[in-house]
């Protein structure tokens, strides 16, 4: 079912904004029904120290979809991702994973369902790619079962999926930016969580490596049915690789839905103070944002 919606989104060359299929699991849409959403924010207020970043946020993320949070710098999109990843505790409201409040679950239990790749993980010294990826198995291990065959095969699978088999024995300190980012993704994949949060996974990468990462994310979503929520800055790439875009600005949600519904000149002006044209991308049919000169 998710396959059809995102095919529609991806192949919808029909430029009429209303024509695109509604994004699955749009906030407030009661269509979700039986299965609880993979992730949900219920009346969440987020603040740093005393400054409130977002107030009373309600957001549901349907299983098996790719949702991208977009918004200007400082709009709070990474903050939402942190709240979903329980890196930041809401000052009001709560976050649910598969319908269960995050706080009712143990750290490792959450980590088996939800993986997060933060913006700047620290690269450890004297560590091979395989060792790094192996750390993704931490939530599956305990004192009594330190390392099992399942752990080894999860790591192998993650290395294969990210094309890192050849580099498995390399020290992570010697990797290029693109390779290192793939290694971090592999770590998160080895975690085998159904839901994956990615905070600006393409920052500091050139365009070809950005595509590399996003295609990988898309293929993980398709092949494993993983739910992905990420923060991206490039609107065109966000539109191309997401089922749903959520525009954050001025402490609230400014737009939410399929890329064609959300990426309108009005929303762009509202959220980014950007005067732009939105045209169909000739290669993918997704919306392409072309800024106009003032």
């Amino acid at each position, binding site marked *: 079912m998710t396959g059809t919606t995102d095919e529609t989104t991806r192949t919808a060359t029909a*430029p*009429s*904004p209303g024509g695109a299929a509604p994004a699955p699991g749009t906030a407030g849409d009661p269509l979700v029904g039986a299965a609880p959403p993979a992730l949900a924010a219920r009346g969440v207020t987020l603040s740093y120290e005393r400054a409130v970043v977002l107030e009373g946020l309600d957001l549901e993320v349907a299983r098996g979809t790719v949702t991208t949070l977009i918004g200007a710098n400082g709009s709070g999109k990474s903050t939402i991702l*942190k709240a979903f*990843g*329980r*890196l930041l505790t809401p000052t009001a409201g709560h976050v649910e994973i598969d319908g269960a409040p995050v706080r009712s679950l143990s*750290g*490792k239990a*959450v*980590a088996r369902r*939800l993986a*997060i790749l*933060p*913006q*700047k*993980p*620290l*690269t*450890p*010294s*004297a*560590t*091979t790619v*395989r*060792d790094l990826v*192996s*750390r*993704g198995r*931490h*939530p599956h*291990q305990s*004192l009594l079962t*330190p390392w099992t065959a399942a752990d080894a095969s999860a790591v192998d699978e993650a290395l294969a999926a990210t*094309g890192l088999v*050849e*580099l*498995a*024995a*390399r020290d992570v300190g010697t990797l290029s930016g*693109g*390779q290192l980012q793939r290694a971090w993704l592999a770590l998160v994949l080895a975690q085998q969580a159904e839901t994956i*949060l990615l905070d600006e996974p393409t920052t500091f990468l050139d365009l*070809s490596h950005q*595509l*590399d990462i996003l*295609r990988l994310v*898309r*293929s993980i979503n398709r092949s494993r049915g993983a739910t992905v929520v990420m923060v991206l800055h490039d609107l065109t790439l966000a539109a*191309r690789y997401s089922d749903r875009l959520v525009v954050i600005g001025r402490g609230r949600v400014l737009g939410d839905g399929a890329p064609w519904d959300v990426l309108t*000149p*009005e929303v762009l002006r509202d959220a980014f103070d950007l005067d732009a*044209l*939105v*045209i*169909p991308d*000739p*290669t*993918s049919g997704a*919306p392409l944002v072309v800024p106009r000169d003032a």
Partner: protein
Amino acid sequence: MSASTTRPQPQPPQPPAPAPGRKEARVAAPTPPADRRGPGRTRRTRLVVATGASAVVVVLVSLVGVAAGSSSLGLGDVVRTLVGLGTPAQELIVVDLRLPRVAGALVVGACLGLAGALTQTFARNPLATPDILGVTSGAGLGAVSAIVLAGGSYAVTGGLLSVGVPVAAVVGALVTSVVVYGLSWRGGVDSYRLILVGIGATATLTGLTTYMIARAQITEAAAATQWLVGSLSGISWASVWPALVVLAVIGPLAATQSSALEVSQLGDDLSTGLGVAVQRHRIVVLACAVLLTAAAVSASGPLEFVAFVAPQLARRLTGTGRPPLLASAVTGAFIVVAADLVTRAVLPSEVPVGILTAIIGAPYLIWLLIRGRREDRSA
């Protein structure tokens, strides 16, 4: 918006975009051919071999340590006596006189090495040792206060030196660590802030200790100074046992934190994502380090730089990315036993072991700081 979205685009310079969704050609950097060894396995083998070899060296040095002294014993005599086949005279020398000192050196060294490995790993910084975090200077102030304030009354002196001073040292270490931790807390403890607060606390406590000594009677001042240097000469079984018990309890507890320590090298956010309860883990690790340090310092006085050098030495021997816990305990034991042996058997007159560890440790710190810029990208 419809006006702007319907415009067809000619776009002649279309980028050579690969078919989306297809298997992509990756920009594969050439792999160096040297990478054929089994991933992970070689490192683990090296860790086990290096730790085992260090342990063997520690045992040998300890035996030499027991043998060395004014009445000379052969290594064979020592081993024979240890298994219960020595003469009563040998028994007296080995078991009652020399063994407590060597055992004390082993336990103190292991405690300090392990404590250093814990703090250096959790702070992701080789400078973060119990000395820097204020634990050692807190113990120092506690011990010196006990010597100076209570030392004037002769009645308590005997009991004070064997019981009061170690207890005061432990109390000083614990109180200091709680205060430092509390001052570093701001919705969670960040290791950088902890180090800064620790440095401040160390400076304050050292100043107070100096003040206490300056105001003390000459005999107490001398005793306090001697204690602060760190020495194994006064150690007896009575002061070895408490430290050994602490090591036996805290060692396994620290080992349970090993995999969380490994994960925490990736940063707090990713650790949380991987299911590590970062703040709780940090409290456990710090508490372990503080108790180990307090146990060691109360037995021997502060031995400078052992907690700093031992984990770094262990890391270099084993080739791991972070100081390995067990190997750090072993190298810590080695450093203290070997330093004690040198002060007794090699140097002309007996020098307190704390002086020797400082003389070795300080240049090593400088060397590490100079080299560290190039080497520790992640620190």
